[in-house]
């Protein structure tokens, strides 16, 4: 569904964020992208979303080369309070993107209530985002993405700005909506536990300029459980494997670098 080939991005000739990334994401997968901070994770996600034109390589989404924001793609940003519009209500926030899609008003209303229900915010449609807690605001952002009925959902450190308990809840919510709405999720995170817990596969990036260090399949059984899954041996092994790759990144081979 998503193919990244030889992706390269430099903000300036001397400032290469992404050296060479290639990976694929199949329909229905949850793939996490992890790496040391400043390794170009957000740059990669922006390129996937079509918000940024990479300086090299190619991204294909559903067979089409990505130039500009493709259809069927939604995104959840880390900064929920800045991504939601404070001047309209929760339901208006969720509904806004649908107004510019070929969706009639009855269907719009249905989708808004369906997605608010999916994130457990049914009674909160008339509130303003700033009247809600951080975790609830991020749920609104997720609901907005779900109502859009995307094929692919990109998440940029979506749970980094909420407290630990809320974070665990939101992780389980993400896994649940993947099943309910039949979407593919690509998630950028700096939290190794989260990456292993949520994903079918973890893509580990090196430090900038980044390459793909490893792609680690996670075949832990689903549904996963915050306590049982994280206690099982397989989880701990995967977790250590990813952690070792990030902590001591082998120096990328300079010889292969494009000039």
């Amino acid at each position, binding site marked *: 569904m998503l193919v990244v080939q030889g992706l390269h991005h430099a903000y300036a000739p001397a400032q290469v964020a992404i050296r060479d990334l290639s990976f694929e994401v199949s329909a229905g997968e949850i793939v996490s992208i992890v790496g040391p901070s400043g390794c170009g994770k957000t740059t990669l996600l*922006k390129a996937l*979303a*079509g*918000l940024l034109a990479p300086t090299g390589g190619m991204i294909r989404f559903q067979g089409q080369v990505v130039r500009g*924001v493709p*259809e069927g*793609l*939604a*995104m959840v*940003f880390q*900064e929920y309070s*800045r*991504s939601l*519009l*404070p*001047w*309209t209500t929760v339901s208006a926030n969720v509904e*806004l*993107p649908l*107004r*510019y*899609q070929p969706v009639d008003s009855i269907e719009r209303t249905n989708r808004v209530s369906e997605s608010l229900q999916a994130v457990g915010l049914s009674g909160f449609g008339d509130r*303003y*985002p*700033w*009247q809600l807690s951080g975790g609830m605001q991020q749920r609104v952002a997720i609901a*907005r993405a779900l109502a*859009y009925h995307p094929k692919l959902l990109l998440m940029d450190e979506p749970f980094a700005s909420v407290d630990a308990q809320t974070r665990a809840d939101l992780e389980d919510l993400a896994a649940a909506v993947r099943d309910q709405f039949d979407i593919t999720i690509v998630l950028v995170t700096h939290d190794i536990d989260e990456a292993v817990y949520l994903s079918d596969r973890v893509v580990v990036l090196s430090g900038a300029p980044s390459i793909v260090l490893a792609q680690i399949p996670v075949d832990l059984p689903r549904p996963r459980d915050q306590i049982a899954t994280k206690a099982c041996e397989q989880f701990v092994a995967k977790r250590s494997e990813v952690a070792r790759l990030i902590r001591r990144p082998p120096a990328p081979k300079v010889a292969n670098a494009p000039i």
Partner: protein
Amino acid sequence: MRAASIFFPTPFDIFTRSAELWLSGPPSRLFLTDTVFRDILPSMLRLLSGWCAAVLVGVPLGILIGRSRYSSDILDPPLQFLRAIPGPALIPVFIILLGTESTMRIVLIAFGSLWPILLNTIEGIRTVDPVQLDTARVFGLPRPARLWRIILPAAMPKIFAGMRVSLALAVILMVVSELVASTSGIGYRIQNAQIMFLLTDMWCGIVLLALLGYTLNWLFLKLEDRALNWHRGARGRATR
């Protein structure tokens, strides 16, 4: 000590004289006197026309400059130059170009109150959160929708701040414009009263201006409160 100074009449004197000047008309005209229709209402009409014109020019121009690098490069230098001209200095020019009727005064008020609106709009448009713009693009909002649904509402608090500063400026410019070559208006009445040594009448006009400025500001704050209710709420939450 209560010295009966002719230069400084007591508030009571001013109050009774004001009632006499403006509220002693026939009941058929709600007790308003001729001078209310000849001076006060025309003054307010000029004030509001000039201010509205400034809003109608300043906000769209500000959006254009704030959104487009190109128009900003072209328009910014001449605008910065024009902005440096004190409005009243243009009165002689406007009199030659536009005569001594209301048009000249309205244009002067509009010119002077344009700048805070324009600069605040540019600033507001330029400082829209990039995350909101990215969100709008990812969710496929077409360009006009991004302007109406994201950029304008986000810039509204700054635009309103500019409009409010301009309202105070508009009152000042209204008075100044009426001190020169005029035959009606609150400013004209004040000056006329001074020349004829009707000092209580002069003070009545000054107090009326204070009341007018206060009321306009109050009304505008009410409007702002309604329009930007979300902003106060969101900010209150953030700083709590």
